[in-house]
C-alpha cells in the first residue's frame, strides 16, 4: 500500500482550509454585517454544495477548468492545456465544495455577539480594522475552530467532485477516497480495509477533539 494518497489528501485538506479561512472570513463578515438586500442570494450560492450532488458541482467545474473554459485559458498562461485533472484544479474544487462548512459557522459567530462590542470598541478609539482583529475575531473564535475543523474534515472525505475534475492520477489527484474506491474495484480488500478504518478513526478523533475544545473555549478560557 502506498502512503501517497494519504499525504496528498492531507496536503489538499490543509491547503483548502487555509484558503477557506482567508477567503471565507471576509465573506462571513460581509454576510453577517452587510445590509445589502442581495446578500442572502450570495449566501445561497455559498450554501449550494450542501444540496447539490457532488457530480453536478464537479461537472460544472470541469466545464470551468477544462481546456475550453476560463481555467483552460488561465492554464495556457503557464503553458498547460487545462486546469482539470491537476492538483490546483482539485484545490479550487475543494474550496468551493467545502465553503459552506467554513463560512456558515464563522458567520453565525459574527452574528451572535451583535453590534454592542463593536460599538464599545469604536468609542474606545479602535478603528474598524483594529476592532475586527482585537474584538470580533476573538469573540468568534469558536466559529473559527468549528469552521476550520469541518472544512478540513469535509475536504478529506470528498469523492464525487474529485472523480469528476481530478480523476485518479497518482501523486496529483489520487486522494484517499479515490484510492479506497480503486482498491475495492481491484478487489484489494486488505488495503481498502486499512484506509477505510483509518478514515473512521481519524474522523472520530477529529470530531471528538473539536467538541472537547469547543467546550473548553466556551467556558471562557482566556
Amino acid at each position, binding site marked *: 500500500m502506498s502512503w501517497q494518497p494519504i499525504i496528498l489528501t492531507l496536503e489538499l485538506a490543509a491547503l483548502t482550509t487555509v484558503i477557506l479561512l482567508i477567503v471565507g472570513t471576509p465573506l462571513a463578515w460581509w454576510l453577517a454585517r452587510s445590509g445589502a438586500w442581495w446578500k442572502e442570494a450570495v449566501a445561497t450560492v455559498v450554501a449550494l454544495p450542501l444540496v447539490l450532488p457532488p457530480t453536478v458541482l464537479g461537472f460544472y467545474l470541469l466545464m470551468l477548468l477544462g481546456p475550453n473554459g476560463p481555467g483552460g485559458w488561465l492554464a495556457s498562461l503557464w503553458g498547460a492545456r487545462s486546469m482539470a485533472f491537476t492538483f490546483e484544479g482539485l484545490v479550487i474544487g475543494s474550496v468551493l465544495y467545502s465553503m459552506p462548512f467554513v463560512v456558515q459557522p464563522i458567520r453565525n459567530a459574527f452574528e451572535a455577539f451583535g453590534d*454592542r*462590542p463593536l*460599538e*464599545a*470598541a*469604536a*468609542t*474606545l*478609539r*479602535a*478603528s*474598524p480594522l*483594529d*476592532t475586527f482583529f482585537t*474584538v470580533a475575531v*476573538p*469573540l468568534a*473564535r469558536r466559529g473559527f475552530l468549528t469552521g476550520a475543523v469541518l472544512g478540513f474534515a469535509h475536504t478529506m472525505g470528498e469523492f464525487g467532485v474529485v472523480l469528476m475534475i481530478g480523476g485518479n492520477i497518482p501523486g496529483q489527484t489520487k486522494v484517499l477516497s479515490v484510492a479506497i474506491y480503486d482498491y475495492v474495484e481491484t478487489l484489494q480488500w486488505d488495503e481498502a480495509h486499512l484506509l477505510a478504518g483509518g478514515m473512521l478513526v481519524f474522523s472520530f478523533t477529529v470530531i471528538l477533539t473539536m467538541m472537547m475544545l469547543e467546550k473548553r473555549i466556551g467556558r*471562557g478560557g*482566556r
Partner: protein
Amino acid sequence: MSLSVHFHGTLGRFELDVAFEAPGRGITALFGPSGCGKTSVLRCAAGLQRLNGRFALDGDVWQEGRTFRPTHKRPIGYVFQEASLFPHLSVRTNLLFGHRRTVGRGVPEHIRLDDVVDLLGLGHLLDRSPEHLSGGERQRVGVGRALLSQPRLLLMDEPLAALDRFSKEEILPYLERLHGVLSVPVLYVSHDIAEVERLADHLVLLRQGRVVAAGPMQELQADPTLPIARMPEAGVTLPAVVAGREDAYGLTLLRLDGGQLLVPGDLGPQGTARRARIAASDVSLARNPPEGSTILNALPARIVAAERQDEVQMMAVVALGEEGRGARMLARVTRKSWDALGLSPGQPVYAQVKGVALVQETM
C-alpha cells in the same frame, strides 16, 4: 457654553429635533420619559448613529453638513446601559483598551490607571474576568474604561438603569465622587429624577423628540410650569454649606443662599459643602412666624410665582430671604389654604420645611 448640540431627523415613527447648549464642565442630564429620544441624541453625539445636524465641543466641529467624524476619531468616553465589557479580556485589559489607543499613541495622560482604580474601587477586580463580576462592579469597570480613554466628553446612557436597587446605591457614591474630580463635561441620560437630582448641574428636559426646557438644574426645578414640577416627588436641590452645630441636640446648621436650615446629624466640619434636597410636599407656607410648632425650620421668604396644578393643589415658588432674593424653593399647598390665607405672588411668607434630604458632597 462649550457644548453645542443640534440634531434633527426621523426616528422610527416620530420626528426628533433637539437643540441645546451645555457648559464645558459638570454633568448635564438629558431627562425625559422612555422613548423621548434622549438615547438617540447621545448616540448621535458619539457618532454611533447619524441624524442631520451639528455637533461641536469647544468650537471643534464633529458634525456639520457633510462633515461627520467617525466614532473612533471622537475623543469621547461612552458608558452603555449594560457595561458591555469585552468578555475575552480581563478587567485590567478592558480598562486599558482605550488607554492603549490614546496614551499609547501620544495623547497626553490626564487620567491614570491607578487614579481610576482608586476612584472606583477596582483594585481587587483587576485580574478577574468580566464574567465573574456583579452588575455594579461591571458598570464601575465600564466607567473606568471610558475614563481611561482620556475623553474630552463623557457620555453616559442610563448607566444605572439595568442595576437593582442595591447595586445602584453601591455605584452612586462613586459617580458623585467622579463628579467632583472630573474636569470634562458629562452628558448623562436618565429617566430617574432622583438620580438626576443627585448628580446633575444642568438639565435638558426632553419630550417626544423636543426640548421642553434647558438650563441650570435649580432654575428648572423651581419653574412651576414645567412637567417636572407636576411629578409627586417635585422639589429643589440647593447648594448648602455647613455653618455650625448644635451638639446638644445632634443638629447641624446649614447655610443656604438667603436662609439657614437645622438638619439632624453630623455633616462634617464647618465649611463642608453639601447638596440639600427639599421636596415640594415637605414645604408649607405661613403668613406669620409660626409659634408653638414642632417644625424647626421656618424661613422668611417671598412668594415669586404660583401655578394651579389641579383641583386640589397649588404649586408655589418662594424665594428665600425677607427681600426674596435668595434661593428658590417649591411649596405644594392646597388651594383651600391658599385661598383661606389670601396668598398671592409678591407676599412675604414663612416657608416651613419639614424635611431635608442631603444628597451629595460636592467639591
